[in-house]
């Protein structure tokens, strides 16, 4: 995680970012963590990630199933449900509106004023 980005911001966006990562294609925990890191959210530890995945599943936005691993223990794969896809679309739109409004309120660091 970038040192300048407060933890509260990550906490706020993490469920939506995790849902978005799973919505790209059916995937498992470690791959989600790698996707989030590649997306610029930094290292998301297992102790933070799995409770979010389980909460999304409990809310009916994801489903999960265990599959056999190659030369190792099985992996738990997560897939987005229709309700999850709808939730993602609605919340993503709301998030973009929110960040645009916040952007209008905050000073532009490139401005000389």
């Amino acid at each position, binding site marked *: 995680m970038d040192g300048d980005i407060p933890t509260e911001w990550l906490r706020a966006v993490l469920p939506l970012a995790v849902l978005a990562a799973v919505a790209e294609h059916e995937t498992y925990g470690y791959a989600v963590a790698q996707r989030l890191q590649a997306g610029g959210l930094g290292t998301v530890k297992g*102790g933070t990630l799995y409770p979010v995945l*389980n909460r999304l599943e409990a809310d009916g936005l994801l489903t999960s199933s265990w599959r056999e691993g190659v030369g190792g223990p099985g992996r*738990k794969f997560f897939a987005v449900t229709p309700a999850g896809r709808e939730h993602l679309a609605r919340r993503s739109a709301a998030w973009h509106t929110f960040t645009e409004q916040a952007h209008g309120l905050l000073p532009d660091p490139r401005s000389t004023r």
Partner: protein
Amino acid sequence: MTGPATTDYQQRLVAALRLRRVPAERIGEVVAEVDSHVAETGEDPAEVFGTPRAYAASLTHEHRRDSRAGTALELVSGALAGWFLAVGAVDLFEGGSHLGLPWWGSVLVGLLLGVPGGRRVAARARQVRDPRDGRALTPTARTAVLTVVGVLLLFAALVAGLAVALT
């Protein structure tokens, strides 16, 4: 599991989740998630998930809280069960009766009153299984039954010895 350290973590996580009354099926899922993740990354589970107690505490939506009425019923029926069983034992060895009940009547009432508490204990003691292969993550039911039977036999031997000494 990937090694002794992970196995130790697994056992402590099972115990911590049991204390928070998480259902056995969910405990198996949580433990398997941790195992699968650390097997993939080679990381220390305590580093990425925190201590077993802390991780169990963070899974707030998994916790189950007993209703106050259920807890009160369990306590009252447990206390009454203990009283009736004790009275039955005293009546057996000393003769006489309480509340118009013979010794076996008191024991029977005590056993019946112990059913709610016994059911809760049984529910909490359900075996935790790994959802990937069905492997038991806690002592098998056979081991648990043998332990309980052993304790009961020991108790029966003590009572018999006491009865012989008093007569």
